[in-house]
């Protein structure tokens, strides 16, 4: 779920010609990571998720995401907080997730289930589990730390940098490596393909719609396919705004008392 893809397009266009030829792999990766998760000081978006299985049966989820960088001015891009607030289906209305994303440490995650009046911390273990039954993982929502993989530039085309990324700790993830197609102009990873130990592609995310919002090229629709089961999840972003000026609503207290102002 590479949303909040904010890129200073103008900035990019201005410097693009100078940068394009000489970028190192790490620079490409950092830039892609930046545009995927760290543009603007904060942001909000309404998300509609449609999960379709191999039989064509559909389920939908609707939620709002709030995101805020812990230290917006800092050079260290990593510490972030997310608030995910569900509105539909009706029976999960007001269910909420809170994520504190850390660099070099496991993320903190909390879950609020209103019908059980229960706030639970989710143990810091595996982040590659399904996000509410969709084909996206938690890690797709909050972003995978570039430090966790070794990156290699496979190919450079007119439009894309094609990167191969291999996990530093292969035991921690289910993939063997993944391949990213990073758009040269925007640094949006428009396609990501995951491969298993036998070299079979089993998972693929593709960006289907990009719009420029508040000056940031922003992913408005993406599709994650599970090639093993034949299912897929399409997420559509609505009402994306940047630099909202969010107060600190990213605490357990706000799970029970959602900051409605920012959720509508």
């Amino acid at each position: 779920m590479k949303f909040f893809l904010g890129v200073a397009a103008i900035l990019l266009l201005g410097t693009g010609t100078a940068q394009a030829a000489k970028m190192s792999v790490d620079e490409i990766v950092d830039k892609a990571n930046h545009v995927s998760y760290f543009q603007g000081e904060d942001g909000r978006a309404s998300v509609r998720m449609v999960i379709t299985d191999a039989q064509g049966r559909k389920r939908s989820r609707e939620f709002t995401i709030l995101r805020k960088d812990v230290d917006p001015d800092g050079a260290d891009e990593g510490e972030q907080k997310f608030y995910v607030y569900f509105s539909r289906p009706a029976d999960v209305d007001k269910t909420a997730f809170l994520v504190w994303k850390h660099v070099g440490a496991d993320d903190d995650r909390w879950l609020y289930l209103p019908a059980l009046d229960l706030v639970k911390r989710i143990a810091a273990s595996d982040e590659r589990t399904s996000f509410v039954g969709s084909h996206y993982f938690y890690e797709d929502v909050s972003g995978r730390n570039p430090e966790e993989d070794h990156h290699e530039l496979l190919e450079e085309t007119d439009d894309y940098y094609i990167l191969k990324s291999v996990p530093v700790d292969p035991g921690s993830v289910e993939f063997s490596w993944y391949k990213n197609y990073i758009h040269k102009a925007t640094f949006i990873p428009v396609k990501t393909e995951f491969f298993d130990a036998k070299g079979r592609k089993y998972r693929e995310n593709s960006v289907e719609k990009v719009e420029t919002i508040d000056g940031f090229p922003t992913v408005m629709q993406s599709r994650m396919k599970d090639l093993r089961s034949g299912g897929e999840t399409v997420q559509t972003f609505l009402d994306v705004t940047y630099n909202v000026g969010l107060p600190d609503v990213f605490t357990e207290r706000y799970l029970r008392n959602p900051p409605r102002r920012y959720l509508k």
Partner: protein
Amino acid sequence: MQILSEAAVRRPKAAMILAALVSVFFVVGVAAPSLWPDRVSFLPALKVDTDPENMLSPHEPVRVFHNDRKAEYGLNDIIVVGVIDKNHESGVFNPKTLAHVYELTEYAKGIEGVIERDIIAPSTVDNIEQAGLGTVSFEWLMKTPPDTEEAAQAVSDKAGHIPFLNNTLVSDDGKSLALYVPIVSKDISYRVSQSLREKIATFDGEETYHITGLPVAQDTFGVEMFIQMAVSAPMAMVLIFLLMWLFFQKVSLVVSPMIVAMVSVIITMGALVMTGNTVHIMSSMIPVFIMPIAVLDAVHILSDFFDRYPAFKDRRKTLEHVMGELSKPMLFTTLTTAAGFGSLAFTPIPPVQVFGIFIALGVVLAWFLTITLIPAYIMLMREDKFGDFGLEHSPVNCGRFLACLGPFTYAHAKLILAGVLVLIGVAAYGISKIQINDNPVKWFTESHDIRVADRELNERFAGTYMAYLELSPKEPAAVHVDKTLREGLEEMNTPAAKEALAQWNESGGDFDALREYVYGRSDNAGSDSEWEAWDNISILIDDANAAGEIFKDPELLRALSDVQDYLVGTGRVGKINALPDIVKTVHRELFLGEEEAFRIPDTRAAVAQTLITYQNSHRPDDLWHFTTPAYDKTVLWLQLKSGDNKDMNEVVADVEAYFATHDMPIALDHNWFGLTYINTVWQAKMVSGMVSAFLGSFAIVLAMMAVLFRSILWGALCMIPLTVTIAFIYGIIGLVGKDYDMPVAVLSSLSLGLAVDYAIHFLARSREMAANYPSWKETIGPVFGEPARAITRNVIVIGVGFLPLLAAPLVPYKTVGFFISAILLFAGIASLLILPATIKLLEKYLFKKKGETS
């Protein structure tokens, strides 16, 4: 008929060459498309099908439902791999064994046809548990093999705490493991299991691995069946050959029935394959059934020829005499046998129909070959070879015994019949005890790997046999959805609501289409009020959707849980995995893992939120093995320790009884699927089909006999030995507690076909001979000469000849071998005892037209 024999006698070489050519044609016809599939694509290749499911037509409603639901719930056929270590203190939960298990799982993931994402193994399932105060953890049960004994033990403890895994993945005592490897189709299960075995062979641990499950059993049966066809049938042939050699002294002579049997089998099986029929479990037994029948007539001819030759000293004249005596009874025995098997064409089971039709064809063919090839063969032998023929030269001629038996039947006719009546009474009691039952796993002998695995695993786990019970509302969920939506839209009565209603009607109630439509309208709304109108409809769609999601209802889930408790409580079900267990388990772990929280929460939203929590795991889609994303149906997974049809039937009856006496919160329909259940359905069809096929062919044979003897009384008399034989055979089956299964069922046709043969020969010859003597008393001597000897030789040759089947590792072959021998023995005894005794008592009715018949 004699014309055919005469033609063969005139041109014996041509007859033999023709038979050889036809055989070669069929051998090539069968082999060619398999060996060179490209060049001979016009011929169907040999197809093997060992799937008992195919005992039902593909259009059979229960099968259609089974396949439909398997696809809908993503339930696949499963290979069960048990891992047991009886010596290690903590069983298989030690670092070394778990490392093997991990390696095996990784290996299984790579086998072609294995559905990787659905494998149930320690490294592929999630554990949800408390991880400290206020914290819940979702993680792989065994992400990597543990390093320490404690960590290994923890895997067992964790799995034991999760109802879905306890007694399924880990045994009740926490010492053994079972892996469940789903495969894309049953017919690859032998290959997959062999591949797993190869991997297992590389492990050097103390633990043992057991592979079982219905698909493996069925597919393995197919493989071993072919080995059996290649071993048992020739072994029977060799023994029959040796016995005939003993009786008839001449190797060259007794080769002829072998030729007849071989050619009959080759042509029949060739025709079966070349007409595109699959070789099914049933049709694989065709050779075994055709052989005795093919040899039977030949033995009659040889027996008669052997005894008569000294009188004529000329093979052609002897043959003329022999064929004159035998051609009529042989034709009739052939027709009755063909009728017996042909009647199977009227059973509702396709493979049994094919079996019956081709045996009937084979029998007629064997007759044709017998009356042509045997005389032709004899004509090709040199005359001087027959010099030492005749009764006095036979080392085993039973002459003295038979010479005594005849008068005995005359002297003690009433005693014999009284004895028969007593035995029939015993047989009737036995028949009343017959257990109708089958289980493909039990087609293997007790010591077979699959049987051992079946025992070991079902001793330790909830059961390796899966049956699925689907529950769905009597009034479809779609009705509730439609109602809620319509009422809501009508109540709104806004332009947007009217538009949405029109869209709903136009799309024919396509929910997803309506949702897309409404999203589109609200996303592109021109004003806030318009957006609000569409958003309200969007909320209504949600409510309507919820109205259809009946299996999120806590009350209904509790009722389901009660059904589960009841069924497990009967003791016939090892365990049930179902939606309520998932909800309860997650709920418990959300509430500090306390046992009192192991329950269904009180509101619908609480259930929904529990379920969405569950979906944050590595395997969110596991939920859809138990319900649909619309929550409008649910399925209970039953694990049974026994795959016996009778046990499954009891469970079915239990469920019927429960739903008949318990009210559900809403009216539910219940429907079964799964292999264990399917097997019971075709069995029921087979039993009723066999009974009617048997009764039908009994009537036909009776009519044929009445025509043959031009007398209803003689016809009825002819039916006595077979009736008694069948009563005895099935009486024994009931008394010894042998299940009435597929092979036993088809034996009724074989009994009918074989037992009537002896009676026809005996009666036809008796009637003929009686014309030359003043009364039955004088006739008995000659009747117990050559005719009785032919029957006795037949009984011995074929009866003993089939005993090698008892050594087969496949139970259906054993069963058939034993019962063919028993049928022949009983039919022979019945013919030689009951018939003469009855004739004596009914003499004045049977021979009243005596004098006119000559």
